[in-house]
């Protein structure tokens, strides 16, 4: 009984995090979008050929600096980073929840998922 209650509790918190994360990131992306339209409205970007983003729009540090300097594209990228971070935060909450239930097996499973996510965000850049 107690286990069920606490599973539900985790689910409630997880639901709130997901909703908040999506809302905040959509607002940031929208704000960045307005700035971007204002600044580059009449330019003609060419997306037919893949160039890849400049290095300062590829990693957390550069995006953060750009957003602080009110660079429109960096603000959009920051909003997208917040969106990517939402599921990561959700996994973190699940680890805490399973730890509170003293469910060691699921703490381990969830930590494996967390490690993979963190590797993708922070470790994969140097692989090439």
């Amino acid at each position, binding site marked *: 009984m107690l286990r069920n209650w606490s599973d539900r509790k985790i689910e409630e918190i997880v639901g709130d995090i997901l909703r908040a994360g999506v809302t905040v990131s959509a607002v940031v992306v929208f704000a960045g979008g307005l700035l971007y339209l204002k600044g580059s409205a009449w330019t003609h970007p060419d997306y037919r050929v893949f160039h890849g983003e400049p290095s300062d729009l*590829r990693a957390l540090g550069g995006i953060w600096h750009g957003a602080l300097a009110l660079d429109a594209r960096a603000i959009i990228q920051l909003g997208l980073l917040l969106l990517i971070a939402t599921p990561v935060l959700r996994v973190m909450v*699940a680890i805490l929840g399973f730890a509170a239930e003293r469910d060691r*097996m699921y703490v381990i499973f969830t930590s494996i998922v967390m490690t993979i996510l963190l590797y993708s965000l922070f470790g994969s850049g140097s692989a090439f």
Partner: protein
Amino acid sequence: MNVVELTVLLVLGSFTAGLLGSLTGLGGGVVLVPLLTIFFKVDIRYAIGASLVSVIATSSGAAAAYVKEGFSNIRIGMFLEIATTLGALCGAFLSTVVPTRVLAIIFGLVLLYSAYLSRKPRTRRERDLPPDPLATRLKMNGSFPSEEGGERHYNVQNVPAGFSIMFGAGALSGLLGIGSGAVKVLAMDQAMKLPFKVSTTTSNFMIGVTAAASAGIYLNRGYIEPGIAMPVMLGVLYGSLLGARILMRADTKVLRLLFSLVIVALGAQMIYAGITGNI
């Protein structure tokens, strides 16, 4: 096309994709990449990046509602996410080395397959299956609020098969920037014999985490272009939220048929574009 025109058209197109995707339950992600590459002539890598980002947005938005209703099974989701995130890492790395023509062909095949799945009648789920030792050890068996009121219990079957299919679903998601919800539902529905409501909502719950695993790699590789991802993400998100709201009142049978025809046409077009190298 200048930035204003492009942004407006992208918002409209993505809004329609998100609306139809959520109304029909087929997901907007599958039509985004063909929309961007065929009609907007965007390089498939930018298209995949933008599509993946909007997959996270719609999955998180929808999962927020399902999780609270108690249909999704967090334990099953978390366990299988080990497979999907590993698959997603492999898929995302693969997508940086696979030629874009091959990507287009694989994408087309996935489109055709998901259209086929959506037309296939759902088999009746046998109830009251015996508990499986592994699933019991992993504490996966659960219950959900049934239509008749009260809780309905279910026993999960064949975890290894489900886990393996999930790896494939993750790899496809990372390779093509889609949620691959159809494959996830297949794993939980056919292999693990979960009740339909539980498998669809748990699949949705997992899509966001799976996509986040490849999003980091996409970002590091420069696939996520703000000028495309911004209108696409906002359009799809608004479209799918609106779709979920009107879903209760709409009869979607005809819409589903039309949308799956559109998916078949786009799939054929992607395969053609891949073969002729016009991508």
